[in-house]
């Protein structure tokens, strides 16, 4: 079975500072990893994904994430936070090859303080 952990329910960052939202995973084989963001009363918006190749992936709105196989982590990062980045962030993994479902972490609420 696959699982995703987001160890922080809440992350507060001052505007302009770098931000990190943590994610670790457990999945057999090569994982496919995703980050989604959810704004109030909205569905999930895709940010970025790692399938293979370069460990650093870049996504929407200036976000990036680094795949670290030895630490089984896929942390989301941004060099300079904006107030508009405040939202709920979900990390997800997929095993692929006949197992298409996404398994989500519990989510991290990111608050950017002006």
């Amino acid at each position, binding site marked *: 079975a696959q699982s995703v952990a987001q160890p922080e329910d809440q992350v507060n960052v001052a505007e302009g500072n770098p931000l990190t939202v943590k994610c670790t995973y457990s999945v057999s084989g090569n994982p496919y990893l995703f980050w989604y963001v959810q704004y109030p009363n909205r569905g999930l918006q895709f940010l970025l994904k790692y399938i293979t190749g370069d460990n650093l992936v870049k996504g929407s709105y200036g976000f990036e994430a680094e795949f670290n196989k030895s630490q089984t982590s896929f942390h989301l990062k941004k060099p300079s936070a904006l107030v508009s980045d405040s939202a709920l962030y979900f990390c997800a993994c997929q095993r692929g090859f006949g197992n*298409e*479902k996404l398994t989500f972490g519990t989510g991290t609420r990111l608050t950017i303080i002006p």
Partner: protein
Amino acid sequence: GAGVSQSPSNKVTEKGKDVELRCDPISGHTALYWYRQSLGQGLEFLIYFQGNSAPDKSGLPSDRFSAERTGGSVSTLTIQRTQQEDSAVYLCASSLVGGGLTDTQYFGPGTRLTVL
């Protein structure tokens, strides 16, 4: 369409009633997924359709839940004899490919179901 659409956006029903939730995937997407988002359970997978293949129903929580996909496009999730624990946001997603190939799942805005 431009994105995944779902209807209704909100549904309030009484315990014991049946409800139907609708999902219109992105045009041309062959794979369709239903998930449920609730306070107690987080985001959980319900069911997955890929083309004409038999759906993966492994996430459906009970036999009160069923889903169908007509003509390879629109999908309906039906909950019979609703219970209060069914209250949640039901999210639909679609992707261009499936069946062993990974592609990004794009989500609709969800249907918020409240069972009184």
